[in-house]
C-alpha cells in the first residue's frame, strides 16, 4: 500500500482543522463514536453546524483555547492509498512546527482565507516549502462561501501567489490551486455546484492522483550504519551485519563500495532482511549488509558505492531554522546529528537572515532566535559525509542538539 505524507500550513483560523475534518467526514473515515463526540461538542458550543476541527485538535489546552499548538498526525485511507497528514499549527511556533511536519512529507497543502488573500505568513509558508523542496503544493483557497464563490477573488489571489512563487529558489515545485469551502464541503471531496467556473480537480481527486515516492532528485546510494549485528551464536558464529536504512538509491550484491571515514574498499557480499537474503535493496529499506572483507565498521560510518562519494568535510555551510528558546550563538558548542552520526560543532560565521517577507539581509548577525532562519557556517571536530539537501534530503539535513539541555534546538539544510 502506498503511503502519502502531507503537511498542512495556514494561519490561525484559516480553517485547517475544519478542512482535515471535512476530508475525514466526506471520505467516511470518521468512526461513529468520533462523529458522536464531534456532534456532542458542537451542540455544547451552540453551533448549528458540525465543528470538524474537533476531529484533530488533540490536547486539552488546545480545546480550551480553541487553537492547535503542536503537530498532530491524522491517518486515513482510500482504496488506493494510505494518507498521513501532519497538522501543523499556524501561530507563534509555526516555523518549527511547519518544518517538522514538512520534513517527512512529500506534499503540502497551504491554506489561504479567501477574504484576506495573501498575508505575511503565506509567504513564510511558501519559503519553507521551497527550502524543504516539497514537490507538490496545493494552494487551498478556503472560505469561498464567504466571498460569494467569486471567480474574480480566486483569480486575484492566484495571481498574487504565482508572483511569490516566482521569487522562490525551487523552480520544480508543482502548484495546484483549488477554491473550496471546508465548512460547506465545496470541492473538498465532492464537486461544488456553486463554482461552475472552476474546471480543476477536487482536493481529494488531486491527492489520489499524486504518485508516491521519487523524493530524491539524484540517486546515489547512502548507507549510514546504525549498529553492527554480531549474533555470537554457534549457528551464526562468523556473521557480521551492518544494520541501517538505505537512502538515495539502490545497492546490490557484488557492488564495489567504500566505507567512510576509513576509505577502505570492499564488495557487498550479502543483503539480509530478517531470515532471507536478497540481491538488490532499494532506498527506504532497513537492511543488514555484509562485506567480503573483514573491515572495521561502526555506528556513524557510511557505506557508499566506490564511484559515488559524498562530500567528506570538517566544515559545513547550511541554512538553519532555529527551534529553541535559547538562541543559536557564536560562543556555544552543539552536537550536530547528521543522520545517525553525531559530532561536535561550533559556529564560525552567522551570515544572513531570511526575513519573513523572504528578503535576505546580507549581514553578519549576533544570534539566531526561535523561528528565525539564517545562513550559518560550522566547524566540526570530526568529518561528516554529506550531500547537498537538493541532491539527497536525508543525507543533506542535520539537527543541532543543545549540549546543556539535550533538546533538539535547530535543523540544518546543507548547501
Amino acid at each position, binding site marked *: 500500500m502506498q503511503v502519502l505524507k502531507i503537511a498542512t500550513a495556514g494561519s490561525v483560523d484559516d480553517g485547517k482543522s475544519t478542512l482535515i475534518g471535512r476530508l475525514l467526514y466526506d471520505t467516511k473515515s470518521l468512526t461513529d463514536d468520533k462523529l458522536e*463526540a464531534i456532534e456532542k461538542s458542537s451542540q455544547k458550543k451552540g453551533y448549528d453546524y458540525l465543528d470538524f476541527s474537533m476531529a484533530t485538535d488533540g490536547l486539552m489546552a488546545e480545546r480550551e483555547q480553541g487553537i492547535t499548538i503542536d503537530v498532530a*498526525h491524522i491517518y486515513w485511507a482510500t482504496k488506493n492509498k494510505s494518507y498521513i497528514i501532519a497538522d501543523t499549527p499556524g501561530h507563534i511556533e509555526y516555523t518549527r512546527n511547519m*518544518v517538522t511536519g514538512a520534513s517527512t512529507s512529500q506534499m503540502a497543502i497551504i491554506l489561504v482565507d479567501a477574504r484576506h488573500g495573501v498575508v505575511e505568513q503565506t509567504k513564510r509558508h511558501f519559503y519553507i516549502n521551497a527550502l524543504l523542496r516539497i514537490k507538490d503544493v496545493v494552494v487551498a483557497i478556503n472560505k469561498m462561501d464567504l466571498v460569494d464563490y467569486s471567480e474574480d477573488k480566486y483569480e486575484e489571489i492566484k495571481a498574487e501567489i504565482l508572483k511569490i512563487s516566482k521569487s522562490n529558489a525551487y523552480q520544480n515545485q508543482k502548484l495546484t490551486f483549488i477554491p473550496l469551502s471546508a465548512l460547506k464541503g465545496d470541492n473538498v471531496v465532492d464537486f461544488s455546484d456553486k463554482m461552475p467556473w472552476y474546471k480543476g480537480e477536487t482536493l481529494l481527486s488531486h491527492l489520489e492522483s499524486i504518485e508516491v515516492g521519487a523524493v530524491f532528485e539524484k540517486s546515489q546510494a547512502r548507507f549510514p550504519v546504525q549498529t553492527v549485528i554480531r549474533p555470537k551464536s554457534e549457528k551464526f558464529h562468523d556473521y557480521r551485519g551492518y*544494520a541501517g536504512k538505505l537512502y538515495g538509491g539502490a545497492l*546490490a550484491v557484488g557492488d564495489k563500495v567504500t566505507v567512510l571515514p576509513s576509505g577502505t574498499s570492499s564488495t557487498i557480499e550479502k543483503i539480509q532482511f530478517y*531470515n532471507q537474503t536478497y540481491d*538488490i535493496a532499494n532506498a527506504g529499506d532497513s537492511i543488514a549488509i555484509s562485506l567480503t572483507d573483514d573491515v572495521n565498521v561502526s555506528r556513524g560510518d557510511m557505506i557508499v558505492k566506490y564511484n559515488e562519494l559524498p562530500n567528506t568535510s570538517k566544515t559545513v555551510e547550511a541554512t538553519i531554522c532555529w527551534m529553541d528558546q535559547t538562541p543559536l550563538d557564536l560562543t556555544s558548542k552543539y552536537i550536530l546529528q547528521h543522520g545517525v552520526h553525531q559530532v561536535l560543532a561550533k559556529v564560525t560565521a552567522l551570515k544572513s537572515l531570511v526575513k519573513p517577507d523572504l528578503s535576505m539581509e546580507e549581514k553578519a548577525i549576533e544570534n539566531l532566535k526561535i523561528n528565525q532562519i539564517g545562513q550559518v557556517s560550522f566547524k566540526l571536530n570530526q568529518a561528516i559525509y554529506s550531500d547537498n539537501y537538493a541532491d539527497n534530503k536525508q543525507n543533506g539535513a542535520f*539537527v543541532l542538539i543543545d549540549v546543556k539541555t539535550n533538546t533538539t534546538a535547530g535543523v540544518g539544510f546543507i548547501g
Partner: protein
Amino acid sequence: MKRKLNINPLESESIYIFREVVAQFEKPVLLFSGGKDSITLVRLAQKAFYPAKIPFPLLHIDTGHNFPETIEFRDKLAKELGLELIVRQVQDNIDQGKVKEETGRYASRNMLQTETLLDAIEEYGFDACIGGARRDEEKARAKERIFSVRDDFGQWDEKNQRPEVFDMLNGKIELGQNVRVFPISNWTELDVWQYIKTEDIEIPSIYFAHERKTFIRDGMIWTANDVVVFREESEAVTTRQVRFRTVGDMSCTAAVISGATTIAKVVEEIQASTISERGARIDDKRSEGAMEQRKKQGYF
C-alpha cells in the same frame, strides 16, 4: 531471477527505530502487554536484529485482571524466543498499601499500573521503554513523539516536546530521565491487523470469535467475571459469540459481537467497522481528556 527487496515503508521505519534504541540507550526494555500491538513489536524487533536474538527483555505490568489467555500466550512467546520476561504485579503495590484499589461500578486497576511501571523502571534503571502506542488510537497520542522524554516522575510534558525532523531521533537524556519509544507510531489499527495476517503472526485466542459469558452495560459488552468485574444483580449474564479488538484488563475492555474465527475474517470485520478501536475501551469513556490525564502521570 534477482531477488529484489521491497519493504513495506511502515515496517522499515519501525525497524530503523528499534535499531536506534539499541544504539542510543544502555538499558532498553519492551513493555509487553500480550496484546496485538506488543506482539507486532516483538516481530519487528526480531526482524531488526536477526540473526541475533532480541537484545532487551520484555516487561509486563500484571494487573491481576488480565485475561488468562493473554498471560498464557505471553509466557509461551517469551519461552519460544528465549527472551527474559520480567513481570511486576500491581497486587504487590496494593498489598503494601502504596496504591489504593478503586471501588464501585467502574472500578479498574488500569490507573494503578502507572505506579508499578515507574517502580520497575527505577528498580532496573531502564532508560528506554518501548511501547506499542499508535498515533491513530487517540487524540492525545496523535501528538506523541517517537522518542518521548519523561522526567524522573515518568511525566509527559506535552507542551515542551523535542521536534522530530526527517528520521533523526535524539535520545539524549539526563540521569533519571527515560524515553518512551513508539516504533509503530505511524501504523493504523488496520495496518497492524494486515501485518499480522501477511506475517502469519500468532495472537491470543481472545482476538477471535469465541463463546463468552457477558452482560450489557452502557451499550457495551462486558465480560462477566465476578472476581474482577463488578456487576449488579440486575445485569443479566448471557453467553454470546464475541471477539476483542483491543486487550486491556477484563474490567475495562469491551467485546464486540463477531463470527470472525480466522485472521482474514477479522481483517474484513475491521475494514467494515464504524466504531474506533478505543471506542471499546471503557477507561477512555470516563471523560474527554481521560488519556491525556493518564499520560501526564506516566501512563504507557
